[in-house]
């Protein structure tokens, strides 16, 4: 794929051909890295050095065509730019830009490269005018222009309008994370090894041999296997490795298997369970009441009054350790759960409806609740038994 892209770019800059290409791949599969690498290689070639004009247009920053156009004119440093300000209306700008691009022909003008990051965001602009014009210019035989789009949506072609699609040369480069576990291990080793050119050669050797040992360690392999099954992309591998490497200090100069394990545990912690861990006992009781309601009514939404009823039933019949709290106190606990977004209302609250009768849903799973309860410190046994009980006493 690298070769393909390089070929394409070379053809634009050296031979003056116009092209357009889309690079598609899931998040973290290295699209931007690939492009940067190709560009670096390109620049090293002697023929290209002064000639290429590049414009990086990240889709996140260009929210509509006007902004994009201003950015392009700014980067091109065209004549009607005074300092950093650009004036003229949208139509004027576009016309001027197209003129400038159109005046040059193959022999005397510089090739221009447009890199559109997050291409799918550009597709949502009004009428897709910018895309249309860019592709139009790339099809007509004036200034050699290459448009490279990077996106993570597979169905990007369907989003393009018909006229835009017809002007797009349907070149696509797919980047898929299609390596298996053994290659993954090799990548792991390569990422962590220090290059041999470091001044402190002795330390580099010690480090590299440690990495080699780690690669063969069963525990480390298990950790990596877990991560590999969860998501193949290299970005999560990087995150995990950085967390482990952070622990390296002067006193602890080598990465150990325990570090990797801890980093993995950190990475995979269930955040909702952590939040449930910090709730007060009253709030836990409310969550258990909601869980029972969900079991009985098979997932239908409930409101505060029903939850309060369940809670009352529990306190009257079973609990010896919980005093019966007043309704406003229970309401405050419920509102805390709302604020943490563990419970969400089905529709926005209107002025007319009372707070207690607003229908809501619980955003926690039964398993999550039971697991979190196991870890909950100082849980009164009554509450725990209530959670695990079936509803035979109803």
């Amino acid at each position: 794929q690298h070769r393909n892209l390089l070929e394409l770019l070379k053809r634009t800059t050296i031979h003056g051909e116009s092209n357009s290409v889309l690079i598609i791949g899931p998040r973290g599969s290295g699209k931007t890295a690939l492009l940067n690498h190709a560009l670096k290689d390109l620049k090293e070639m002697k023929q290209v050095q002064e000639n290429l004009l590049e414009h990086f247009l990240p889709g996140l920053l260009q929210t509509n065509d006007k902004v994009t156009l201003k950015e392009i004119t700014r980067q091109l440093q065209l004549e009607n730019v005074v300092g950093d300000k650009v004036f003229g209306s949208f139509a004027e700008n576009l016309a001027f830009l197209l003129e400038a691009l159109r005046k040059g022909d193959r022999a005397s003008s510089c090739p221009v490269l447009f890199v559109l990051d997050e291409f799918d965001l550009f597709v949502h602009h009004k009428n897709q005018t910018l895309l249309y014009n860019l592709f139009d210019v790339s099809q007509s035989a004036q200034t050699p222009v290459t448009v490279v789009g990077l996106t993570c949506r597979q169905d990007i072609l369907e989003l393009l309008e018909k006229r835009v699609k017809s002007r797009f040369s349907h070149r696509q480069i797919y980047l898929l994370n299609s390596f298996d576990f053994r290659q993954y291990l090799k990548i792991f080793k390569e990422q962590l090894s220090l290059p041999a050119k470091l001044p402190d050669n002795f330390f580099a050797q010690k480090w590299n041999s440690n990495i080699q040992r780690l690669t063969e360690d069963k525990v480390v392999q298990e950790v990596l296997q877990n991560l590999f099954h969860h998501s193949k992309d290299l970005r999560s591998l990087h995150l995990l490795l950085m967390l482990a490497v952070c622990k390296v200090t002067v006193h602890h100069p080598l990465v150990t298997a325990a570090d990797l394990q801890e980093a993995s545990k950190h990475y995979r912690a269930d955040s909702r369970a952590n939040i449930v861990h910090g709730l007060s006992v009253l709030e836990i009781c409310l969550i258990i009441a909601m869980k029972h309601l969900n079991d009985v009514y098979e997932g239908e939404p409930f409101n505060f009054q029903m939850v309060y009823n369940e809670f009352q039933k529990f306190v009257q019949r079973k609990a010896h350790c919980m005093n019966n709290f007043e309704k406003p106190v229970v309401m405050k606990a419920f509102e805390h759960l709302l604020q943490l977004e563990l419970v969400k209302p089905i529709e926005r609250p209107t002025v007319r409806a009372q707070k207690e009768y607003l229908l809501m849903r619980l955003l926690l799973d039964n398993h999550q609740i039971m697991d979190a309860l196991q870890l909950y410190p100082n849980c009164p046994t009554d509450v725990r038994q209530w959670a695990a009980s079936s509803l035979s006493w109803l």
Partner: protein
Amino acid sequence: MPNLEHPAYPAAKLLQLESLVPCRESQVSLLLSIFGEREQFSFPSIFIYGHRASGKTYVMHTLLNTLQLPHVFVNCVEYFTSRLLLEEILIQLQRYSEAEQASHVPCDTLNDFVRLFKQAVASRELQDQTLYIVLDRAEQLREMEANILPSFLRLQELTDRNVTVVLLSEIVWELFRPNNGCLEPVTLYFPDYSIGHLQKILSQNHPPLYSADFYAAYINILLGVFYMVCRDLKELQHLAALNFSKYCEPVVRGEANERDTRKLWKNIEPHLKKAMQTVYLREISSSQWERLQHDDGEPGQLKGLSAHTHVELPYYSKFLLIAAYLASYNPVRTDKRFFIKHHGKIRKTNFMKKHEKTSNHLLGPKPFPLDRLLAILYSIVDNRVAPTANIFSQITSLVTLQLLSMVGHNDQLDGPRYKCTVSLDFIRAVAR
């Protein structure tokens, strides 16, 4: 407890830092190891989540200020639109630039922001150190434009500078993630304080007149009452400060000495229970509470914010309200049985069995037409009531008070329909 050590920062500063953040040493050491040395690049974005008073803002503040790392601190609730947020970041960045005047830079979009940011960061004072942008209450970022959150997560890549964005929030990361995916930040969890930690932190604030043990005993009692309900450090601090003078009263009056725990407990316990219903719920303000303590009279009727005794209704309005409540919560079929002198037998239909589980009280009030209201009113009021305009105007005033609410359009063909919006306790209070 691990000592914080880091080769890049002087040990004296680290010691000072450790004293300022009790019970949070492991989080701080993790953060320090992630930050690394001053010039090193760190993760592009860090997401810290935890409960409300678990010290996230406080720890970040003390860490960045004590070690004097260049940072920008912005609260997303205060700057709730993207324009305000971006301009505030740029204004705070001017602290680090060499220009003396603080000019107002208009910044509308993220594109301009990135450009101006690159200019601002190029000053000599920063010297390639990592700049930290801390966004507090980051859940508000979801409400702003859709490209704000993903851009901030990628700010390091978009601006090509040494900058790290730290997001603090109560809500878990899964609810933040945009639909298309984004650059995932490192998520750190600030665990809630355990009961031991809470005791330790609360006992640090003891007033100098009394001994630490005395105050610790008081905190113990306070936690015993309130821990089941609330674990929020700020709330507990507030309650501790308010109730301490009442706790010391027997000692002050000379009835008991500091170690007489049983007497102190008997004195303070009903007081704390009352506090749970009033100050904890913010029904009365803390100054009112303190005045009440000084008067030390009968507990009496506390005029809370949602007290029922606030509303004084005229005679017929009370009956109207009760009639409305009955109309909302009783199904229509039972009207005949309750309100007419000679009733027939009720035939149990199949319809009743299916809906037996969800009682009307749980689902909320149902709307009823005006005629039904008047019919019930006539039957519950003893003497004859004439349908004068007086009655109708009282109904309208009940609607304005939001004790009744009108359902449906103004010009409905069947006449106006109402719904009762008050609870049973309120009705009981009114009926007395």
